[in-house]
Each structure stands twice: as structure tokens, then as C-alpha cells.
């Protein structure tokens, strides 16, 4: 994404912060919506739009789980594996999804066709709906059985990719 588009996104909220550095996170989150992850060029554009150095911007981006500095699939499927969801079958959901997408059962990963990334998430705040799953930054849903979870990714694979990838 280019710096001008990022600037245009930041202009309406600039006055809300006494220090412009607070704009770095909104800028990174917005820049990511174009490709679903942040390339070095995207981060350089954020640096240009906010006035901070590219290495500072990259160090901020690398801290947060939901800022991706490497390519991920068209859709990112986060499976909560924390305690409450584990008690409700999260490991079974996780295994079924990794199996179905042919990705590593320890770390998850992206399917060969590049459509779906399966990743572990820590407690998503939907423990009452465990085992729960969040697609990109859409509303988390649950409870899922392994079969229902597989159906979810099959539907996602067919669905059109959203214009803006908020993750």
C-alpha cells in the first residue's frame, strides 16, 4: 500500500492523539488490509506516512500476533487452543483442520493452494462458545465440532475474498 493512502486513512484521526506515534498501529493495521500481510514496502510506506524509521516500524509490527510480516493465506483461520476450549474439544478441531488443509500439526500453516492459513490462537474471549474459531478479524464463532470446522474451511475456500483484509 502506498504512503498517500495510509496518510489519507490517518488524517481524520490525527487530532485524537497528543503524540503522532500513536498512529503507527492504526497505520500498520490499515496497510495490512491490502494484501493480508505486511511486506517490507508496506512497512516502508507506513514509515513514510508516520515519519518514523522503517526499522522502528518493523520492530513494532514484529511484536504483535495479528500483524503478519510474512505471507499468509487468503483467509486466516484462528483456532483457540487455550484451556477452556481445550476442555471443549479444541485439539480435535485443530487436528481435523490441519489434516484437512495438509499443514503441520504442531505449527499450523498455509494450505498448498494458498487459500487457507490455520493458526493457533490464545484465548479469544469466547470461552462460552468453545471450541471457537475466528476467521480473519470477523466475529468469533462456536462451538465447533471437528466436522463443522472442516465444513467452515470448505465454505471459506469457495467464498470470495473480502476487499479489505482486516486481521
Amino acid at each position, binding site marked *: 500500500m502506498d504512503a498517500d493512502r495510509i496518510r489519507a486513512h490517518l488524517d481524520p484521526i490525527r487530532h485524537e492523539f497528543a503524540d503522532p506515534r500513536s498512529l503507527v498501529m492504526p497505520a500498520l493495521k490499515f496497510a495490512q488490509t491490502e494484501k493480508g500481510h505486511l511486506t517490507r514496502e508496506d512497512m516502508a510506506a507506513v514509515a513514510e506516512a508516520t515519519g518514523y524509521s522503517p526499522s522502528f516500524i518493523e520492530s513494532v509490527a514484529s511484536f*504483535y*500476533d495479528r500483524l503478519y510480516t510474512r505471507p499468509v493465506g487468503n483467509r486466516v483461520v484462528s483456532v483457540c487452543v487455550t484451556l477452556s476450549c*481445550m*476442555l471443549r474439544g479444541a*485439539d*480435535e478441531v485443530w487436528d481435523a483442520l490441519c489434516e484437512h488443509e495438509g499443514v503441520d500439526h504442531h505449527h499450523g500453516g498455509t494450505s498448498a493452494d494458498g487459500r487457507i492459513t490455520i493458526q493457533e490462537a*490464545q484465548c479469544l*474471549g469466547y470461552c462460552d462458545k468453545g471450541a471457537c474459531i475466528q476467521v480473519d478479524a470477523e466475529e468469533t464463532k462456536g462451538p465447533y465440532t471437528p466436522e463443522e470446522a472442516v465444513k467452515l474451511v470448505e465454505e471459506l475456500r469457495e467464498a470470495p475474498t473480502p476487499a479489505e483484509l482486516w486481521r
Partner: protein
Amino acid sequence: MPILNSVYRHREAGRPLTELAAYREAGGYKALESVLGETDADDLQYAFVRSGLRGRGGAGFPMGRKASFLPKDSRLPKYVVCNADESEPGTFKDREIMEMNPFQLLEGLTLAGYAIGAVRGYIYIRGEYEHQARVLDAAVRAAREAGFLGKDLLRSGFDYDITVYRGAGAYICGEETALLESLEGKRGQPRLKPPFPAVAGLYGSPTLINNVETLTALPPIVTRGADWYAALGPEKSPGTKLFSISGHVVRPGNYEIVLGDTTLRELIFEHAGGLREGRRVKAVWVGGSSVPVIGEEHLDTPLDYESLQGIGTALGSGGCIVMDDSGCIVRACLRLASFYRHESCGKCSPCREGTSWFERILQRMVDGDGRMEDFELLESLFRRVSGKTLCPLADGAIAPIRSAIKLFRDDFIRVCQEGSPRPEPMLPASVG
């Protein structure tokens, strides 16, 4: 004991109050209208003190007292920051408030701002709650249009606005100083305290930080009176509390109870519908995952700060995780250890290295490769990490494991020798 849905208005109304008109009908913004231009900021602060309201984010610090720590004569602008990072495992109460009753949070945040003379309030919300953040965005716009936010609120001369700020996935950003770092556009790593945020918080300015549930309790405290609130429940920790209950219970969800009025047994068996047929309670993490675990013998403890402290655990965030006797305590500990290892921000080495060791040792126990020396090793690690870190995350990682080893030593020894096969989970279908 009955559930008292009296503080959080969407519960009282029995429906979501996401439209301003609906919130107004339910008594919304009466508190702000009665206070602005009428009540002195100090008197409002004093009402918060008298209500006895304690912080609902985990530490339980008295809200009014914290507000009184902010300097009165600061030349710097003051801020209120609402902690909506809600990432403590087992906790999902703030989510309900934000998605069902966003205006009550905005009204509470505005009252807090008035009480300390702030220029702006920020809601720092975890990135995963994008849906809730959009509900809040819409509520802020509606409140602004109606004159409840912006310049010269209700012609009182008080200027105040609210910004919703999204995080991007990091549990540690719930720790208040890490939150401030993140809100300042940096990596979310905790700061050395003192100075405390009340003196030097956001942008070095005096800052009041409170949890969503804490701030949302303020409007009814104003309309019904501090004395009404203080009379609910025990003297030292009055009020109602939202408990999130999850895990092996039939009806997981949020329940608002009067503190001290309901026992853990009642929460599990009456409100949350109990366990599956033939199951018994094995372990409960009553205040989120960072508190010592307790067993069946403590089910009759009343749910309030003092009583839970009295049995060696803590009320924490009110995120109550229940495991029945089908679960394996060592596996549960391992899962929590993995959580803390993943969420350690890496700033201090005892925490960074320690959490990784806890996970490794518990993993080999679960795999049946544990050794008897591992108990001593874990204990010596706990001693070397506990109290030697910048923030309480590391102690939060230790508490559930250390307490479990003490309480369920026989299980640990058996698992060390035999390993622990993955037990059958409680699937949606088995809830019935």
C-alpha cells in the same frame, strides 16, 4: 442465591442496548445529566470512593482511591484509559458489555473523565474484538451527535471525547503499562513502576486506567447512589460482579452476582447448569488462569475477594474455568504453561526463560518422560522467577502450576510415570 442483574443495564432490560434511544429508555445518560455542571468533580470522586467499587480487571484496587491519586494541579492534560484488552483465559465479560451495552461503558468513561478533569478517554480494545470495536465506534458516533461527547457537553463547559484504539494480538497489552506503551505506538512491553500511571501515564500525563466492567458500574452508582452500591454484598468489597464461567459446565456464560452472596457451588451447579451426568468437579480456576487452582473441597466458598483470598486463591478477573474428573490436571497445566510462554513479552530473562522451561518440563511429564527430580527442578525455577520480574505475568504463570502440584501431587506422580493420553473432550453434542 438469585442473580441480581441490577448494575449492567442490558441485563436488567433483558435485551441488547446498542441503540442510543434504547439505552436512554433504560435510564441511560441520566447519571451524566445529573452530574455535569451540578456536581463538583471532587464530590463525584468521593462518591466513587464511598461506593467501595474495586477494579474488576484483576487486581481489585479501589476505583475511587485510584482516581484520587491523580494530581489536582497538573499542567499536563489528563486522560482516562479503559482497559478492554480482555485476554485472560476464561474471561469474556467485557465482551458482553461492549457488544450489548456500549453506551453504559461510554457514560461511565465520561463520568470518570469528569471526575478527574480529563480531556479524553481511550478504549484500548484487543485486536481480536474487531466486531466489538465496531459496535463501540458506532456508539461513539451516536453519543457525539447527541451531545454526550465532544465540546461543551450538555452546555456544562466540559469538553471530552473518546477514542477507540485497537490492539493487534498480545495478552501482555492488558498489563496497564504495556497497554500504555502499545497505545503510544510501541511494542507492548511493561514499564518499570514507579512512576505509576496516575502520575505519569499516557504521553507522560496523569492517567486513570480502569477495566471495562469497573467503568460500566459508574452510572448506576451515580443514579442510585454510592450508599446503595456499598450496601450490596460484603463491606470491604461490595457490589455485583460478572463471572464468566466456562469449561466442563452445561451452561457456560456470564452471570452477574452480588459479591459474597453466591457460593462457587451455586455458580457452577445452579447458574451454569452443573456438569455432565456422573461427573465430579476436579479443578477450578476461579478468577482466570493466573490464580491458584482449587478443588472440590472449596466449592462452598462464597464468591468475593476476601473469601477467595482466604482459601489461597483470588477473584482475579472473574473468569471461572471448571474442569471435571474426565480432565487431566497435568495437561491443563501444560496448556496454561504454553499460554504464558507464548505471551511472555521477553523483556526480563527470568520470565522469558522460566516460562519456556515450565512448558518443557510439563510436556515431558505428559509424554510419560517425567522424572521425580522434575518436581524439585520446577520448584527451584519458581523460586528463582517469582518476584524477580518487571510485571506480574510471570507470577501469573507460576500460580496455577505451583498450586496444582501441591493439590494434585498424586496425579502428577502418576503422569510422570505413565504419561497422560488425551482425554475425551466435552463436545457440543454431549451438552444435550
